[in-house]
């Protein structure tokens, strides 16, 4: 099993969700995060006081899938989340040791 972690631009979330539904992935966890990479922040000025805002809002999407589906999921997210501008984000693939469905107690492949 693999945990796919994607940091994407917030407005791309619906597109990514639709793309994943299209390839049969029906669940995900989403959180609002801040971060930066090559995309620089901006400056805000409030009545003469200037602040550099270095962290940009992003959305973190986490999807757990069987290992053989990982590549398809990564590809789907990549295409859906891409704008071609700096700040599109990154995708990480991490191994999962165990998975459990809380309601039924099913484990591993049956939990995904």
């Amino acid at each position, binding site marked *: 099993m693999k945990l796919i972690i994607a940091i994407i631009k917030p407005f791309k979330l619906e597109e990514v969700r639709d793309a994943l539904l299209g390839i049969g992935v029906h669940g995900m966890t989403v959180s609002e995060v801040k971060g930066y990479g090559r995309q620089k922040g901006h400056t*805000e*000025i*409030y*009545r*003469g006081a200037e602040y550099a*805002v270095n962290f940009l809002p992003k959305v973190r999407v986490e999807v757990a899938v069987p290992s053989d589906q990982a590549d398809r999921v990564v590809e789907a997210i990549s295409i859906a989340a891409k704008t071609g501008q700096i700040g599109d984000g990154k995708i990480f693939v991490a191994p999962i040791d165990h998975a459990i469905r809380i309601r039924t107690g099913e484990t591993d492949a049956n939990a995904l």
Partner: protein
Amino acid sequence: MRVASLARDALIAGGLTVLTAAPAMAQDAAKDLSQNLAQTGGKIDAADTAWMIAATALVLMMSIPGLALFYAGMVRKKNVLATMAQTLAVVALGSVLWAVIGYSLTFAGDGAAIGGLQRILLAGMSPDSISPFAKTIPEALFMIYQMTFAVITVALVAGSVADRMRFSAFMWFAAFWLVVVYVPIAHWVWGGGFLGRAGMLDFAGGTVVHLNAGVAGLVAAYVIGARHGYGSDNFAPYDLSLAVIGTGMLWVGWFGFNGGSALAADSRAVFAIVATHLAASMGAITWMALEWWTRGKPSVLGMISGAVAGLGTITPASGFVLPWHGIVIGFAAGLVCFWSCTWLKLRCGYDDSLDVFGVHGIGGATGTLLVGVFAVPAVGGAAGLLAGHGEQVLIQLYGVAVTLVWSGVATFVLLKLVSAFLPLRVDKQSEIEGLDVTQHGEALQ
């Protein structure tokens, strides 16, 4: 140390003045009850009373929730509730203090330095009582209208020390400040004291409210010191939409603040309202234009700051000038206050968190001086420079100077006095964690 001993001397002198006047006040008390009805020659007018009741409600709304929203929207999330708490507490505490002692010392009796004790706990105020200062409305209405001015002045001061003052110390300071700083100045200008007698013009509180609060705020900002992280950390406002809503309430409420200062439902009230509204509008436009020019973008914070600057600046002039003067005065307010909030503040390095001095202090002083220039006899019975009475500017300057000195010195002394018993600031860790949680045990979710 020299400043402290000067302040101590001023306090002793002030105390002696009040004490020597006390025997005379006691004698006056007995006569005053009948005096009120027989000699003021007043008669309650229904229209004036109706308007003044409405005006009182409008000005109270300026404090709660107007100022509460205006201020709270500009601080950081962790201090929003605490900032509102300061306004709420001041309204509650200040209202009671005003009824108990503030009103009497400001508007009863006829001392040059301070009022009398005849109206302690509003004693002697009957349904028929009329104040010599407002001859067509019930005295109780005049009293509560003035109450709304007193409490908002105290609430304004809190803006300078937002994000770091200990709530308990603030409450003590606010209570003393109302009685020792606000009451004397209000008496001198409006209550028959020496500034009004000298011919000083302040229609609705350019000195009594705005310059007073501004100077006190500046002194407090210096005494308490800058916020931890000031100049380096991100202090961006939590939610400027709250501040915008607050500004709307202040702007509309000001129709009662300046319009109501005519103490009657008449043309002077209307002229005051028109001048006020035009000044607010022009202040907003001017600040917007300045930002557009200097930084390329007009900000919402700039618009609301400009509007409030215009409102504070027109306040002393509104019942003495022609409505179109409001445009000129609003423009001046935008220029001067923009300069003081951006250039002056950075240059001097003080942390006046919410620019009470930059907007209200500087604006109030500017407006008070401009009355001396623009006052027109047909409107308020007084003439300024342009109407051939240039001396008025000097009288205004005198009033500004007295207010500045009393407010500055007395505020300093009070802060030092309170700090002898309680730390004025919260400790550093509490300041970092936030006042909502540490002072009030609450948090925005």
